[in-house]
């Protein structure tokens, strides 16, 4: 493949740069504004996706590449999304439950044991 294949696409890189800077400012603004946590998360992730799309489309020239980009990137993207989905039932839902040592004091556990022990003794007496 020769070097003549480097095409000029007449992209206004400076405009893309300013869009990216503006998006970064928006992210910080959303953090500073006191909004509900859920709204902040959605907004900053939406801004991050917009920034990522700008970088991929214009800086990485994916907008101007042929269909090979789908063949190359679709499998990795599917696998990448699949990993958190696969982990979620095992870890995301039940990894740290309330009985984890981080949120349980020994005093509570001893008290619970004693309650159960007392109940078992009473049950045995009957």
């Amino acid at each position, binding site marked *: 493949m020769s070097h003549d294949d480097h095409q000029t696409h007449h992209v206004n890189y*400076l405009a893309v740069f300013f869009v990216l800077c503006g998006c970064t400012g928006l992210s910080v603004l959303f*953090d500073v504004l006191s909004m509900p946590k859920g709204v902040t998360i959605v907004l900053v*992730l939406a*801004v991050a996706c917009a920034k990522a799309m700008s970088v991929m489309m214009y800086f990485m020239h994916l907008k101007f590449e042929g269909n090979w980009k789908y063949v190359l990137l679709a499998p990795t993207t599917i696998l*990448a999304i699949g990993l*958190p989905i696969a*982990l979620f039932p095992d870890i995301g839902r039940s990894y*740290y439950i309330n009985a984890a040592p981080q*949120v349980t*004091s020994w005093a509570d556990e001893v008290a619970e044991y004693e309650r159960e022990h007392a109940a078992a003794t009473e049950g045995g007496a009957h």
Partner: protein
Amino acid sequence: MGIPIPNSKLGMWLFLGTEIMFFTAFIGSYIVLRLGSNGWPTRYEDTHINVLLGGINTFVLIVSSYCVVVAHEAMAQKSFARARGYLWVTTILAFLFLGIKGIEYKGKIDHDILPGRIPETSSQAMVKVADQLEELVRERFHAYTHADVIKAERPADIIGIAPLVQALPSAERPSSLTDAEFKAFQASSVVDYALFQQWLDLKQHIVADVSLDSPALTADYLAKREELAEGVRLPALKLEEVRERLASLKTSGPMKVRAGDASPEQSGSPEQAAATGDAGQDAVTALNSQMAGLISARVFDPHPMVYGNIFASCYFIMTGFHAIHVIVGMILFGMVLKQGSSLNERWTDWVENSGLYWHFVDLVWIFLFPLLYII
């Protein structure tokens, strides 16, 4: 027939495909772990995550990405000097990024926000204070056994060595030491024994889970417990008490803070130190102040943080691997810059491919910034 791009570019895109999976494994695991936890440290006082520094680093990477794309454009137009200029700016910005990251890492290290070192409960925080004091006592006592001032069968047994350290001001000088050297050891032994007492007192209170206002050492503790009605226990140790005790040690030194169970002759004072041995009062007072400084430097203020360790693991693994990628990018650009004025069109593919790599590094940071710094 085939994919209409240079082989090197195809190789880079395939590599970036694996990189997408590599970073998504970290980012995905982080999201899943965070969703699965009942809490997550987000306050600045806990995490020492600086949004401003993260924002500046984001800006730095965006500028560098712009410079790379313009450098590639210049290469395609055979404007090699211009391309080199933009690549220099990119490399300098990469150094700046790593410098800012280094400042952030230092903030974490200074506050011991490191995986596996963060206490998650009050009791863990108290144990950590005692462990760090113990480490200091061990280090201090090692000086005596190492210099043969104290002959001990088991040098690591600090409880066994402690009476020998206590008795040093009235001990005979070993022939291996000069008079001045021995006097220095005698003076420091007074302070080191006081430090040992402080550690032992705290440790006993933690083991017995008894307030610092109550006795915790064996005889007094048992006597006090005898006085209690059945089912009643001595007041439990509180984190606030440990915090206050440590603050006193850091400001006044171990000689001037009375350990709860220390008897008058044990608790010691500079005056007693001067009276019991040859060690001068001034020397002991100065050493006590030095020890206060040493405790300040070596023992962290207790700061329990639920899920702090998993947070620190996620933070360092993601930002750490990202920083490694930044370094690799700098090497790629460095190889181009090494060509100097002889840079020519044969390097155009190289600049394009390393540019693609650099944009990917920027892309990863675009997601790390909101996930780690904002949410």
